[in-house]
């Protein structure tokens, strides 16, 4: 039977603003399926975003949503979570929003291990503002501000999150659409700061500058570069050259920030 996405979408909000072939819609569907599988109550779920194409996502979903300043989603979400620790807090943002402008908030949210889920839609570029290169644009690739090729190496968001201390890190792609909801659902269930990076396509500002002829070619590229973690164990370093690992990359148990902070309040005699 057809999945009833409308149950979680604000009436009259579709069609969305994303370009034809943009994978953000596929990720939004994955998030809705994940929310549905966990039976999240709309009133107890907050989706927080910054600015950018991906950050338009909460506007469509019918639950508590917060559209904040560029890169500041993690800061606002921390406030929501501290005030109401019982809420499910989900952050959504792009690669530029999360790792450049909000890079500082991102690494410190990872370090704190506050119980939230951060979904980063990595399309390798700043789409909304006109295709400027982001920290995730691969070396040599073109953007409106690097017309002769980007000299910088791109960030590996998953490694950055693991290094900064996130307790759950997973990666999926817009091509592997039926894996997205499972990764997001596992991330929401994990207690601690969870990062889910979804590799996405931006046909409008990234694809046409980098000789991708169509959306389909971009989707197939995601299919080619993605290697599941388990399959990668049997592969040599040479075979893994230029590939990206997908699936759950990191999962550890660490003290959670809200609980630790409650203990601080207790020690200071705040609950008397």
């Amino acid at each position, binding site marked *: *039977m*057809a999945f009833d996405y409308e149950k979680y979408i604000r009436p009259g909000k579709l*069609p*969305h603003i*994303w370009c*034809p*072939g943009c994978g953000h*819609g596929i990720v939004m569907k994955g998030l809705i399926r994940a929310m549905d599988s966990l039976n999240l109550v709309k009133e107890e779920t907050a989706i927080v975003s910054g600015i950018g194409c991906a950050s338009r996502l909460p506007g469509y979903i019918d639950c508590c949503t917060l559209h904040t300043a560029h890169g500041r989603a993690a800061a606002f979400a921390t406030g929501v979570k501290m005030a109401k620790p019982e809420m499910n807090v989900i952050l959504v943002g792009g690669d530029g929003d999360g790792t450049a402008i909000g890079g500082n908030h991102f690494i410190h949210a990872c370090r704190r291990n506050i119980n939230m889920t951060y979904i980063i839609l990595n399309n390798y570029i700043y789409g909304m503002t006109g295709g400027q290169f982001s920290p995730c644009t691969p070396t040599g690739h073109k953007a409106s501000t690097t017309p002769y090729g980007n000299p910088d190496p791109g960030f590996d968001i998953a490694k950055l999150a693991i290094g900064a201390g996130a307790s759950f890190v997973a990666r999926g792609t817009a091509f592997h659409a039926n894996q997205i909801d499972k990764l997001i659902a596992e991330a929401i269930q994990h207690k601690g700061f969870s990062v889910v990076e979804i590799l996405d396509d931006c046909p409008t500002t990234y694809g046409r500058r980098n000789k991708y002829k169509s959306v389909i070619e971009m*989707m197939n590229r995601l299919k080619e570069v993605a290697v599941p973690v388990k399959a990668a164990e049997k592969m040599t370093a040479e075979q893994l050259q230029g590939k990206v690992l997908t699936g759950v990359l990191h999962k550890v148990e660490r003290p959670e920030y809200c609980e630790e902070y409650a203990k601080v309040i207790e020690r200071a005699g705040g609950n008397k």
Partner: protein
Amino acid sequence: MSEEKKLPRIEIIEKYCKGCHICVEFCPTKVLEMKGFVASVKDLEKCIKCMQCELRCPDFAIKVHAE
């Protein structure tokens, strides 16, 4: 054929479709085609109800109603 094959109903919301070709290209049995700027059903008989089009459509424009 002993039993008549039950065909699904593929609903395409034309108002939402942006013509990205994803459903047409990723349908394993090529049920869909582009009619102008929007997707449409070409050959419903071939449909195997794999739901790939519904799963992949970024624009919430396709629903496959199958039992």
